[in-house]
C-alpha cells in the first residue's frame, strides 16, 4: 500500500465517521418518532381480590398518598407508622401501631390500639382496644388523615 492511497483512505474514513455519527443521530430521531405512537404510562399494579378498600379523603402529611388513592383491605389490616403494619401510613400524627381494621364476615370493625392521637369513626372518638363498627361509606380518621371505607365483599 503506498502513501497516497492511504491518505485517500484516511480521508474517506474521516467522512465515513462523521456520516456514521449523524446516521446515529438520525436513527435516534426515528426512535423518538416511533415513541409518538406508543401510549406510555406508569405500570398498573396487579389487581388483588380485596374484601374492601380505603379511599383516601385527606392524605395528611403522607406525601406518598393523595386524595382519591385506593388502599386494599384484607380481613385483618393493621394501620400505623411502623414498617410491620399492613398499611404503613406516613402522617406525622400516626402512632407506630395505630389501629386495626377487621372484617368478621358481615361487617367492618375498627379497633384503636391505644394510639397517641386516637381514631374516629364518623367523627366519634373510639375507645382504645374496643372495636367499633364501621358502616360502608363510613369516614375513618386517624392522625391528620381520613379515609372512606368501601365494601367489596359482596
Amino acid at each position: 500500500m503506498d502513501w497516497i492511497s492511504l491518505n485517500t483512505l484516511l480521508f474517506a474514513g474521516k467522512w465515513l465517521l462523521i456520516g456514521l455519527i449523524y446516521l446515529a443521530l438520525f436513527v435516534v430521531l426515528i426512535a423518538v418518532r416511533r415513541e409518538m405512537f406508543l401510549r406510555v404510562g406508569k405500570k398498573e399494579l396487579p389487581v388483588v381480590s380485596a374484601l374492601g378498600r380505603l379511599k383516601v379523603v385527606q392524605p395528611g402529611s403522607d406525601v406518598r398518598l393523595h386524595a382519591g388513592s385506593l388502599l386494599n383491605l384484607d380481613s385483618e389490616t393493621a394501620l400505623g407508622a411502623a414498617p410491620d403494619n399492613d398499611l404503613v401510613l406516613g402522617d406525622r400524627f400516626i402512632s407506630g401501631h395505630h389501629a386495626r381494621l377487621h372484617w368478621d364476615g358481615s361487617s367492618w370493625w375498627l379497633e384503636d390500639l391505644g394510639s397517641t392521637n386516637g381514631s374516629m369513626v364518623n367523627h366519634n372518638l373510639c375507645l382504645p382496644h374496643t372495636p367499633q363498627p364501621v358502616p360502608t361509606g363510613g369516614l375513618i380518621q386517624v392522625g391528620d388523615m381520613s379515609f372512606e371505607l368501601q365494601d367489596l365483599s359482596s
Partner: protein
Amino acid sequence: MVAKKSGARPWRGMEALLLVIVTAIGVLGFTLLAVGIQVQLKQNPLATVPAALLPALLVGASFAGIHILLRVRRVALEPILLPAVELLLTIGLLMIWRLRGSSGVWQQLLRGFIPGMLLIAALILRPHWIELVRRWAIPISLFGLALPIATALFGVTDETGARLALKLGPLPAIQASEIIKVVLVIFLAWYIEREGREATGRARPLFGWLRLPTLRYLIPGTLFVGLATLALVAMSDFGAVLILGAIFIGMLYAGFETRIFAAIAALGLVLALLMGVVLSFTWQVPTVIQYRFLAFRDPWSSQQIELNGQPSGVTISEGPGYQIQQSVYALIAGGVTGTGLGFGSPEYVPLAQSDFIFAAILEEMGAVVGIAVLILFAILLLRILRIALLLPPQQVFERLLLTGIAIHLFTQVFVMVGGTLNLLPLTGVTIPFLSLGGVALLVNLAEIGVALALAQRLEAEPL
C-alpha cells in the same frame, strides 16, 4: 386466532440498531486514530490497530450486555439513553487515546467504566436500591459532606495548589467534588419530598400575594450547601461550587410549589458571585478567580500577574490565558470537519484530556462532531427529564432525583463548553462521559443507571 400478547412488550429494536451503529463508530474511529498516529510517526500504519480495537470492542460488548439485560427484564422504554451514552463515551475514549495513549484509556476503563457498567447492571436488576437510597438519605448525605471536608483538611495538593483528591492508603485517589454533587441531589430530593408539602402549606403570606415559608424549612438545605461550599472553597474547586449552586436552585424551583425558595436561593447565589467578583478585585486573597475573570476578558492580555502584591513576572497571556488561547487555536485548526484523527496537535492545550477535551474534539474531529456531541447531551437530558415527568406524581423523591441528575449533567456541560470556547470564565470541571476521570465517569454512569432503573416503572403499549 392469534392470542393478544399480554404484559409489557420490550421496544428495544431501535436500541439494538443504534448500539450496532455506535460500536461501528468506535471500531472505525479507533482504527483511523491508530493509523493516523502511526502515519504521523512515519511507521507501519497498521502496527497498533489490534491494540486500539480492544477498548472499542470492550465498550461495545458491555453495552450489548446491558441491552440484553434490559430485554430479559422486559423493560419497555428508553431505547435512546444507552446508545447516546455509548457514543459520547466512545468519542471521549478516542480523544483520551490520542492524548494519553493506551494507558490513559485503560485507566479510564478500569477505574470508571467497568465499575460504572456493573453498577448500571445492578441498578437494573435491583431497582429497589433506589428505595434504599431514600431510606438511607441522611447517612449518605453525612458521608458525602464528610468527604470534601476531609479532602480540604488532608487532601493531596496538586501542582496548581488546589487540593482536589483524597488519597487513602493504597486506594486510588477519590475526587470528593464529583461525589458531593450527586449526594446533594439525593439530599435535596429526600428533603423536599419530606418537607415540600408542609413547607408550602405553612407558608406565611407577605404583602398578601408573596408566600414566605417559615425559616426552619430553609435551614437544613442552606446548611448543607453552605458547608459543602466552604469545603470546596478550601479545596479551591470553584467549578464545583458553581455546579452545587445550580443544583440547589434548580431543585428548589422544581420541588417546592412556592417559587420563593428558588428565588431566595438564586438571589443568594448572585449576591455571593457579585461579592466574590468585588472581593477579588479589591482584596487580594482569591486571586484565582480574579485572574480567571481577567483571562476571560482578554486571554492575550499582557497585564502582569501579581502574587501577594508582588509582580511575578508572568503576564496573563502566559499564565491563565494560555489555556484559553490554545483552546481557541485548536478550534480554528479544526475547522468544520477537523484535521482528522491523529493529525492535529491537541497536546498543546493544557489539560486537554480532562477539562479541555472538548477543544481536542473540535480540533481533530471538527465542529460537525462537536455539534453532534452537544445534540447528544441535549437528547440525554431531555430523555432523563421525560422519565421524571412520566412517573406518577406521588413519587416525589424519584422525580426530583432525575431532575437533579439532569441539572447536574447540564451544568457540567454548559460551564465547561462555555469555558472552552471562551464564552464563559473558565472553571475547571469535567465534561460528563468525555473527560478522563474515573470517579466522575463512575458517578455519571450510576446516574444513567438510576434513570434506567426508574424507567422500569413505566410501560408502553401501541395506541
